[in-house]
């Protein structure tokens, strides 16, 4: 083999090693993803329960936010889009799959009951619902729905919020999108 051919072969080996290097490949994928949130990671986040910090990070990242929203739309059991117009009653949101009813406690100590009322035919989703996620003005928030307050009689899930809870403001905002997963 000539000296020239040996040099070409050596460069080819180095190039092959570089291409097949796992770490370099991972870096390359991350460089094209949105600041650490590749699609697979976002899919995993949407699939399981994530912490509020992670959701906050997604909210901060425009690309991740857009991708996460698209994934949620695919994976959510029930979805309620933005309300067409500001409702006269901010304590009630109507949706095709479920309604949201907000009722302050009679004791007037700041406790507010939020009920997700599933429509006929959607009630089966209630039993496996784990999380309510709101998306309003680019910010995701979530509340667990795994409380024991599920009654199969009236097809509703009830959660308790403080009147200062930002989620409550989201629920009252007609621009908020809601996902139940």
């Amino acid at each position, binding site marked *: 083999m000539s000296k020239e051919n040996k040099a070409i072969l050596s460069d080819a080996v180095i190039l092959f090693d570089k291409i097949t290097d796992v770490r370099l490949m991972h870096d390359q994928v991350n460089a094209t993803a949105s600041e650490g949130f590749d699609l697979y990671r976002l899919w995993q986040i949407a699939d399981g329960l994530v912490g509020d910090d992670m959701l906050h990070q997604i909210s901060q990242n425009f690309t991740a936010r857009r991708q996460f929203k698209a994934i949620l739309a695919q994976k959510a059991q029930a979805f309620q889009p933005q309300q067409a117009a500001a409702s006269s009653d901010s304590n009630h949101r109507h949706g095709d799959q479920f309604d949201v009813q907000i009722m302050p*406690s*009679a*004791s007037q100590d700041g406790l507010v*009951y939020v*009920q997700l009322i599933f429509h006929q035919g959607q009630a089966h989703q209630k039993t496996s619902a784990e999380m309510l996620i709101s998306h309003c003005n680019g910010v995701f928030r979530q509340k667990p729905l795994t409380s*024991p307050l599920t*009654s199969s009689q009236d097809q*509703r899930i009830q959660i*308790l*919020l403080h009147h200062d809870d930002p989620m409550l403001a989201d629920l009252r905002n007609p621009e908020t999108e809601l996902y139940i997963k």
Partner: protein
Amino acid sequence: MTRIFIPTTQYPVEIISLTEEHSDIQSVICITNTFNALPVSAAYHAFIRRPTGIIERITGIPSFRADVSGPIDQGDSWQLAMLIAHRLHHKNGFSQNDNYDLPFIWASGQVDINQTVLPIHHIREKLLASKPLFEEINSRGGQLHIALHPDNMADATDIIPNYAICHPLAQEADINQLLSSMLLQHHQNESQNQIDHMESAEQSADTPKRRQANSIFSLTNILSPFCNKGWKRLIAGYGLVTILLFTLQQMIPWHPIHAAMEMEKSGEHVKLIRMLKSYRQDDNIIARLSFLYFEEAYLQQKSDQLIAQIDMQLVWAVANDNASSCENDQMRWHRYTITDANLPSLPQQRCHLYLEIQNRGDNRLALAVAINVNDSGQIIPLLQPAQTQLAPTEHIRHPIHLAEQKPFMILVSSSDHMTTSWYRWFKRWANRPAALTAKKSLKDTGIGVHMAAQDKT
């Protein structure tokens, strides 16, 4: 007022407050000031709301929020304490504050739909875990009541503090007794507070400032006869009697009785009879007796008045001097006023026979009439049931055509209301006069009923 504790095997949990919520809300138990629903909330919701829950059945309120001082993780032993708390709350006898003068109820037990108390497990652990609380109550001079199923009470006799007042609860009557004593104590405390207040007023009257004020307004002179010991005892005695009467008055179901009266006035007899039937089976003896009195004193009296308001007469004619002709100028007319359950024998050779009914009252009356022949026990309608209205002084006349000389009977009902609800009962009664159900329904709901029958022609 009473403070109530739910024991757990770790610590006693106090019921801090009960809030009546909107009926759409699912009942919850929260740890106070946290807004966290406890895992037993679903069971609590079922305990409150019909058809499984007993609290709505007792109080009529379908949704509550209970705030408690600590977590209750599992089990159903919280039910007895919650039942007592809700029933006291219903009678305005439940409150939470740091006052150790109030009686403390420490209760543990499962309760079924009939308020029958069932024994629970781990009672000894619960008593031991509550020992610091018991000692605290005792050291501050508080009154401790322990409420348990008799079996649980027997199991833990050796570790129940000797200063505790024990209430073995097995059934609703036992719970009623406990609640009555708590409410009575509550009223006595209020009475005592008033006496204390009077004493403090008396003491404050001795201060120079007060004396000065009294000398200006001469108030002491006016009140002085009421401030000696004899008067105080008398006032306390009268107070106690007033409280007892007030308690009894509170237990009378005034609202349902008023609702029943309104039903009667508006002619809703079917709803009324349902309500009466449900109260006849009410477990609460005061409610049962109140409704019994209402039926006797109001409805049945009204029924009698409505019948007394109509004048019923049998009118017949016989030919003069036993002539065969029934010409008008040759007939003698006879009248018989029906006042009791008997009808007179009638002459076989008579020309006419009528039943005349006149409204001699001041109000318009709805009237239903039927006439039957009793043919050896078989009821044959002679005049089919008919309903009509009579203005004051107006009368109706029904001809009676007796083909054979067989005993007949007249059935009459009268009411303020021209409705079909009671008329249906009347038709049923007319078809089977011997059966009492329909007749009883009429009389029980304030409809006048009268039946008069012939023994023999």
